């Protein structure tokens, strides 16, 4: 299994993914033009010599046994540059009067676009048959390796939007209490429109004065910043990397947006460069790989699990140098030879 940038010939594979994602995964609608546009944006981003604003880095997980597309993930380099980017922000406002012996601090939700210009990790999807061997973790973490390697093309902060709470019947208590009064459409339609990148209607229709949360129903309040139960593993993985919820929630379902300074992300901090040394034979099969490696060139970017961690040369002229040993099949998968360097992350 290896990760690589999406290419034009992946369109059919991408459509399969789009069909499988289904409702609730709005960033990958089953729409030919939309998917083509995504691929073109990625190609432009990978070829860009300059740091243009509207860059998308879209990756696929390829099964190198037969070339099929098993999953995908992406990084938006700079959200809000093309279409407006909105959140509700949970803040608080003191409300006090010495004379009335009153001192309360009330929570408020306020419409904002504070994340404009940040990077976003998004569009992670893994097909059912490949949900094993830590393929999901590979898709999630490759983005940190990519950002660490090409740090200069990203801004200071990164975010990830997490799906909010839904009832077993698929209703969003947050939407029903708030959004439904302001959007003359149902949740899925609103969600679909934003997925298609048509976001300016949010600013047009959403309440712009602060909402005091005590005015919301109990179930809507309880949904603020809470994730869908299926999303818990994903959010746990991001939190382990150091992303935190700083009070921003999705306009529609109230789900949390987690965020971090890119330089603070554990994987970005901890990944390191190492020189490749080849070792004979193929890698032993494991279902708990724990070392990831990615290549250093943007155009031929590849990433996969490998078997050995980085070691330090303990003597000789290269004493102290970092080295990573690859089996032959691992080197082929990544397209590297002895003496090349890789970015390696343990964990």
């Amino acid at each position, binding site marked *: 299994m290896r990760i690589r940038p999406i290419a034009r010939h992946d369109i059919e594979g991408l459509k399969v993914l789009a069909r499988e994602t289904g409702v609730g995964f709005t960033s990958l609608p089953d729409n030919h033009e939309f998917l083509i546009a995504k691929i073109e944006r990625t190609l432009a981003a990978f070829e860009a010599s300059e740091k243009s604003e509207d860059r998308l880095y879209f990756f696929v997980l390829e099964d190198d046994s037969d070339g099929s597309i098993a999953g995908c993930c992406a990084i938006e380099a700079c959200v809000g540059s093309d279409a407006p980017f909105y959140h509700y922000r949970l803040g608080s406002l003191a*409300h006090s009067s010495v004379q009335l012996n009153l001192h*309360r601090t009330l929570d408020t939700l306020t419409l904002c676009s504070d994340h404009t210009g940040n990077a976003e990790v998004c569009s992670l999807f893994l097909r059912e048959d490949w949900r094993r061997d830590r393929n999901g973790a590979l898709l999630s973490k490759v983005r940190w390796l990519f950002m660490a390697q090409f740090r200069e093309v990203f801004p200071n902060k990164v975010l990830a939007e997490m799906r909010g709470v839904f009832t077993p019947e698929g209703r969003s208590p947050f939407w029903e209490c708030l959004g439904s009064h*302001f959007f003359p459409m149902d949740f899925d339609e609103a969600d679909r*429109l934003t997925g298609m990148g048509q976001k300016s209607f949010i600013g047009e229709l959403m*309440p712009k004065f*602060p909402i005091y949360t005590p005015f919301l129903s109990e179930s809507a309040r309880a949904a603020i910043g809470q994730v869908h139960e299926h999303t818990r593993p994903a959010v746990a993985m991001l939190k382990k990397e150091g992303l935190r919820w700083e009070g921003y929630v999705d306009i529609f379902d109230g789900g949390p947006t987690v965020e971090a300074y890119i330089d603070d992300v554990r994987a970005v901090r901890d990944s390191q460069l190492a020189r490749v040394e080849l070792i004979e034979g193929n890698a032993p099969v494991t279902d708990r790989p724990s070392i990831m490696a990615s290549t250093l060139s943007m155009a031929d970017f590849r990433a996969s699990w490998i078997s050995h961690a980085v070691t330090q040369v303990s003597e000789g002229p290269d004493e102290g140098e970092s080295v990573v040993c690859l089996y032959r099949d691992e080197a082929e998968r990544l397209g590297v030879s002895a003496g090349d360097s890789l970015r390696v992350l343990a964990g």
Partner: protein
Amino acid sequence: MLVVRPAESRDLLALERLAATATPRLTNLPPHRDRLEERITRSQRSLRAEIDFPGDEIYCFVLEDLETQEVVGTASLRAEAGAREAYYTYRQETLIHASQQLNVRHEVQTLALSHEVSDATLLCALSLDARYRETDADSLLRRARLMFIAQYPERFASELAVAFPGYLEMRDGCQISPFWDSVGQHFFDRDFNEINQMAGIRSKSFIAEVMPPFPLYLPLLTPQARAAIGRENQRHEYAMQEMLAEGFSRSRHVDIFDAGPLLLAERERLHTFANCGWHPVRIRPAESLPDAVPAMVANQHLGGFRCVLARYALTPTGQLMLTPEQAEILGVEEGRAVLAVPMPLPAVDEGEL
């Protein structure tokens, strides 16, 4: 015989009783002796002062039943509702949320804190002994204030406002305001009765100024609270109908605590102003007075203002016939002019509202 006259110091106990029995309790008539005493004093001062335009005067009237010599009602006028402190209301507004992208226009109702009624003259603090409710005494007490305004227009604003207590629900044996429960409660963490009492003693604008200045989105209020907006208290339906018939109109404004309706009128459009007129008095024995519709009749004494119920019995040359008793109460002799207006009001059709 019933008469409306300015309150005097000797009326204090009666006022206190009327304040305590007002249903529901009125913010602007707290059963608090010092406040009431202060109000009487202020009213007397207002009546003595030379006034060229409305300011922070209060005029406090009482309704006395002369047969029992008992004070059975009270009502006040604030010359300028927001003279000392701004007079706050919630103003019902509509925001248009239009999306060009989706080609939809969505209207969202809001309540916005407003003090634009501050300049109006406020008819307020009416409380009447239960035995007299919905009788002519009720009308006399309510509308005698208009007779007073008609005589001293320079003391009042051209716009008149009257606020009605809002709709309350019985819950666990207590009267609670569903509007307060859904709105003010969040900010003050005090129940309706507590805040109402506090407002009576401190001031309502004081409290309003601690409220957040942002419009409230109506869809986020409880259905009970929304239903209470602009709805008068059950006990005040009769009074409300009378004021609508008098020529007041419902406005966008409602009370900030209980969302009770605020009626407004340009004073010259009111029935009483349009139809009142000066008539010289002719005194006749009671038995010789012809039958006629009831009328309110007021004398011309500022400090000694009196307004009574009589018959609208005019001579062919326009003199108003009063009994000796009525003339005495009004303090007028033959030939003096009194201000009179027939009581009956036109019917109101609120069907369109």
